[in-house]
């Protein structure tokens, strides 16, 4: 977090800061317009004056006066106190991909190390989105693909929502890779609140960003708006689980409109949460069976070399008996009963699993089933 020096008046510039302040100021009005089904997609493309006139209603004079008196230094110091860096669209470090949008955010507020954010943007980026109420299958796929892509040096972009989004971030973090979370509120807040530990992890080893200034509360209209940022930042958007009318499909549509690749993980044709993803595949989205399919989509067949061929150094250093146990977990012996029934005694199995879990090589899911993560 780089507090901005008071002596640099141009970056972030006053007009960009004022633009993002205005959107946050009118957030409630946008919400009303959005709820009334007038749609918000076009709204963010309006210029400042048009925005005030079309949205402020009877508060027009008040908002216009506040707009004239806008104090950009207040926003700057607010950013500094909440550890947020503001990158305005005139800034060279502003992600160029966002200019593909008809309504690019005027300012990106970045919580987390700015240098790391720049590295994350400079790398190849894949967006992963999906259902909040995901199944264990969806969560496993999201984690596995997130981990594989991050291990191959890609940046995983998602929205930190419950379910698939969070699992994708966790996968990337587990591989010690880079990940960017795009929020629908100020980037210093953890939304949803139950993901505050994840928020802290991403801030510490990735970046949490938003187009809304610190302190802006969450509004419903802001979710599709943040989805457009996710779609624009990434070269490809992978949908992991989505129902028939899922918000993830909006992101996929936005990605397609921007000319980005769209891909989806298939599910059972009878599963409600696979209806959206299977439909995407039927419409021509790339079918994804694992991280290698995403890499192939982006870089062609040669890309498979990107996946680390040498095993994880954590696995190489394992004691022989732990390694054997890990292999058996990977081979489908996933419960203590199954592992203990073939000779090894329960004590040794329990102790071994605890050690593997502590080293992050296995994780315990519902039903006490272990899965290998390396």
């Amino acid at each position, binding site marked *: 977090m780089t507090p901005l020096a008071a002596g640099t008046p141009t970056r972030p510039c006053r007009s960009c800061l004022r633009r993002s302040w205005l959107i946050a100021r009118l957030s409630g009005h946008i919400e009303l317009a959005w709820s009334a089904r007038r749609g918000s997609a076009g709204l963010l493309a309006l210029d400042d004056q048009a925005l005030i006139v079309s949205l402020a209603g009877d508060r027009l004079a008040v908002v216009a006066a506040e707009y004239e008196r806008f104090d950009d230094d207040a926003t700057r110091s607010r950013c500094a106190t909440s550890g947020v860096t503001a990158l305005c669209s005139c800034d060279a470090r502003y992600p160029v991909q966002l200019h593909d949008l008809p309504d690019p955010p005027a300012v990106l507020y970045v919580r987390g190390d700015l240098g790391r954010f720049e590295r994350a943007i400079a790398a190849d980026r894949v967006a992963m989105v999906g259902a909040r109420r995901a199944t264990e299958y969806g969560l496993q796929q999201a984690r596995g693909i997130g981990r594989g892509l991050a291990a191959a040096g890609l940046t995983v972009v998602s929205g930190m929502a*419950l379910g698939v989004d969070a699992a994708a971030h966790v996968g990337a973090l587990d591989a010690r890779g880079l990940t960017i979370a795009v929020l629908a509120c100020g980037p210093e807040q953890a939304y949803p609140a139950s993901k505050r530990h994840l928020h802290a992890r991403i801030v510490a080893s990735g970046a949490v960003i938003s187009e809304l200034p610190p302190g802006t509360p969450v509004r419903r209209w802001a979710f599709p708006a943040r989805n457009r940022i996710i779609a624009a930042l990434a070269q490809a958007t992978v949908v992991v689980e989505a129902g028939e009318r899922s918000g993830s499909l909006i992101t996929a549509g936005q990605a397609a409109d921007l000319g980005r690749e769209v891909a989806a993980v298939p599910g059972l044709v009878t599963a409600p949460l696979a209806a959206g993803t299977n439909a995407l595949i039927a419409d021509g989205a790339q079918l994804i069976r694992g991280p290698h399919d995403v890499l192939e989509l982006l870089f062609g067949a040669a890309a498979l070399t990107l996946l680390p061929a040498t095993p994880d150094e954590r696995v190489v250093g394992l004691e022989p008996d732990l390694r054997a146990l890990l292999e058996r977990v990977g081979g489908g012996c996933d419960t203590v*009963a199954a592992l203990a*029934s073939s000779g090894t005694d329960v004590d040794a199995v*329990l102790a071994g699993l605890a050690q593997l879990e502590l080293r992050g090589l296995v994780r315990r899911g519902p039903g*006490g089933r272990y899965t290998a993560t390396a």
Partner: protein
Amino acid sequence: MLARVVTFAIDGIDPRPVWVEVDIRPGLPTFRVVGLADAAVREARERVRAAILNSDFEFPARRITANLAPADLRKIGPGFDAALAVGLLAASGQCSVDALDRWAVFGELSLTGTVRPCRGVLAVAEGARRAGVAGLVVPRERAGEAALVDGLEVAGVDDLRGIAALLNGGEVPPPPVPAPASPAAAVQDAPDLADVRGHELPLRALEIAAAGGHNLLLEGPPGSGKTMLARRLPALLPSLTRAEALEVTRIYSVAGIGHSGGLAVSRPFRAPHHTVSPAGLVGGGRPPAAGEATFAHHGVLFLDELSEFSRPSLEALRQPIEDGEVVIVRGQQALRFPTRFTLVAATNPCPCGFAGSERACRCGEHELARHRRRLSGPLLDRIDLLVTVARPSAVALADPPTTSSEAVRQRVLAARERQSARLAGTAVHTNAQLDARLLRAHVQLGATARRTLAQAYDRGGLSARGHDRVLRVARTIADLADRDAVELGDVLQALALRTRETNDDAVAA
């Protein structure tokens, strides 16, 4: 003329001496009972009058006042009938006053003068011995129960005339035989671990729970065998000592449930339904009565479908688990009910019950999170062991038995002996009761074990309380292995027996 008879009131499950004083003097014929008596005791006047007349005694047509002392103790139930009648007979010169110094009297009267059996005779007998009374007169059906108490002369009587004859120097009936316990039947009936197949993890957890007195949560889909496993825990515990058996028998005698008068032989197993009220679970009501937690004293309290219990009920369990007793305050009195039990709770892994099993789970992360929230909190903080019960595979079902209850019990007994030797001179007996100070004194970890535990703690998967629980369980695992030192393997096993799922939000190591 004045007569005084010793009897006993039951306060919670504790006997309290009560002196029934009967005064008869000239005046208009009345019969008053004073001294904080409840409705059943006030009704005693009618029963006493009829019983005296039907036993061919004379009911004095004078001013009769009976006082139950001490006046500040609430007297509950019909057990004072016999003492009131005897006091009245003695005060009117129809039986000997002197014998009342030797004998305490306890029993309910019927209108015919028969002495009816009533609840809590064992508690009364214990109270009589403690109060230094030489003998106790009780209904004949309950004499065997009273005879369980050593050093007390017990006379079982049939009716009021029998009591009067005894007090007037008549022949004391032959001492009753202590009510028989039937250990053989109890042991045969107890389900055995030899019937269990393919449950290696929960079996290990049951053994550790039995050895260290740890509370246990079993999580698994419907039909995976959670209840079956929980029912096998009492047979793994050491046999009741005589003092414990008397205490258990007394609780059941006072409550008048499932009780033949004999000494309890097996440890109680209570499985209240999840609709139980807080008062039903921990005791309460008016007059205050013991709840399931007390009925499970020295045994096992099994809460099936833990997430279905109401929050107030589960909250109410905190004190009994923590303190080993429930204190119920009603008006000016505070009643204590003992509640030292091992808690076994069972729950489905998710609302539909099939998360992580072969059948597809239909719950989303939302429902799972809500389910987990219902289970979290203060009660879970007091459960040392959390294990998953999976449906055993068909192959495992055909396997030979892996162990038997008796084999496990021998290891449990040895581990318990190690604990009592180590904890001699402290107020606690099992590892589950170790507080932070005792843990520091009795669990010394090697450098690797300490580092591993610190790593688990730093990863955020372990709370401060969870840290202590791991140490307690590790201590028991070492005790089961007959070792003084707690080793790395013990700590690792304890860790594996704690968390349910890897915590994604934990900060990576």
